[in-house]
């Protein structure tokens, strides 16, 4: 006897709710324990210290830029992987997924080998007057490298789930592939794109190892909040916890504002013809 509040069907078995509660506890308990440990009198000066605020600002700026790059490159990659049909597709997918498993520090090394001074492209880049290492660009590059697969995987899943029926209809109405992409495909997979972007942004915000290895750690230039936290921890674990809380609050605000968990109506693949059984409320 469920009691949906809207007038649509939603039958969640009760045991599912129970298990979900345990799962939520698994995540919430450590967070609560962390909050309980914060040394509040010390908290305000610590999080408002110049180094913390600089690091926070840098983190937000770089994570935003990296997420934008992830969307820029990830959407086409996901499209090609989901809709394309070419030899080597599975291999490409596997490779694009690799940064997921690479320990971030090693990812940073790989980036060094590619874009560093002595790296594959380093010579050419240096001739072009581009110096990536130890710059904010390096931070963005590192974050993009580790976060790109998150966007690609989420979006590819959403694209496959959505199917291509509406795209086909749009094409028969005379829409060019680019128009179809902009006006049909992307709006339909918006929930998937949103979760992918949120995942990427979060991954960028928390990125540590690759940045440290590839970009270094200099206040205001390459020392993002996680690097700052790591350093603070050397002095005082509690200080690190307090700073982390700052990161968490920022993340909750940003994620909470941007990712509303789009309403089921108007999403993906709900066919236009209503069987009358799908209320939108």
């Amino acid at each position: 006897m469920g009691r949906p509040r809207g007038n649509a069907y939603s039958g969640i078995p009760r045991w599912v709710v129970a298990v979900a509660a345990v799962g939520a506890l698994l995540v919430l308990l450590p967070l609560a324990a962390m909050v309980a440990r914060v040394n509040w009198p010390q908290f305000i000066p610590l999080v408002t210290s110049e180094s913390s605020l600089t690091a926070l600002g840098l983190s937000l700026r770089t994570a935003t830029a990296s997420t934008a790059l992830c969307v820029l490159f990830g959407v086409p990659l996901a499209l090609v992987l989901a809709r394309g049909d070419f030899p080597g597709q599975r291999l490409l997918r596997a490779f694009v997924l690799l940064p997921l498993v690479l320990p971030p520090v090693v990812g940073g090394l790989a980036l060094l080998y590619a874009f560093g001074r002595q790296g594959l492209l380093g010579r050419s880049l240096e001739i072009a007057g581009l110096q990536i290492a130890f710059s904010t660009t390096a931070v963005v590059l590192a974050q993009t490298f580790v976060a790109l697969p998150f966007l690609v995987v989420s979006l590819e899943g959403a694209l496959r789930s959505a199917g291509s029926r509406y795209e086909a209809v749009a094409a028969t109405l005379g829409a060019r592939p680019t128009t179809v992409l902009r006006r049909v495909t992307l709006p339909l997979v918006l929930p998937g794109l949103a979760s992918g972007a949120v995942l990427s942004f979060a991954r960028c915000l928390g990125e540590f190892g690759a940045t440290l290895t590839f970009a270094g750690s200099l206040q205001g230039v390459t020392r993002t909040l996680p690097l700052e936290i790591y350093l603070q921890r050397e002095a005082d674990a509690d200080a690190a916890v307090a700073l982390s809380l700052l990161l968490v609050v920022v993340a909750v605000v940003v994620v909470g504002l941007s990712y509303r968990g789009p309403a089921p109506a108007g999403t993906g693949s709900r066919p236009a013809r209503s069987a009358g059984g799908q209320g939108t409320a």
Partner: protein
Amino acid sequence: GGASGGGAAGGGTTVSVFAAASLKAPFTQLAEQFEADNPGTTVTLSFAGSSDLATQISQGAPADVFASADTKNMAKLGDAGLVEGSPRAFATNVLTIVVPPANPASIGSFADLANPGVKTVICAAQVPCGAAAKTLEQGTGTTLQPVSEESSVTDVLGKVVSGEADAGLVYVTDAKAAGDKVREIRFPEAAEAVNTYPIAAVRTSKNKDAAAAFIAAVTGSEGQQVLRGAGFGTP
């Protein structure tokens, strides 16, 4: 599933040693020797940054012996009442300059690190090697303009090995371990900032005797010889 660390394994005694990551090579060798000298005793080694290890021990990690790369983290544990007796210094380490083998910035002395255009990488002041670098800067009156302040020596070394940086300040042990991937440039001022490695048994240890034996092995002549071989100095 695995057994929890610490405790007795296979009927014999187990000593759980928490050691700073920079001690990996000598301690691995030492542990083998110790096991050979004390049949029935197993040494399990857990390596990480000193502050990580200190945090773990204060959170109840089953350690018998703690070997720190600095006195600060040992003191932290001491304040928490987790150290048995007083810690003993068993090794020292001093900073040295490493440059890529080609030495592109032609570094010859500590003062050269401050030359404009030289990409110098040092440790951040919050970590022991960074604190030592600060001391040197003050002692020599040189002000470095590093392109990066890393959180560990390994990261400094990494930047130099990869050729990203023109020079870096690392410990002599690190320079030694890196072999011919870097060129080491010793400088006399280094002696002004000596880093001391203390070792102590953990109060909550259940194998205090074995812990004491291991500490004795490290501080004993055989142990010192192994440490010296890795580049450490004698305290």
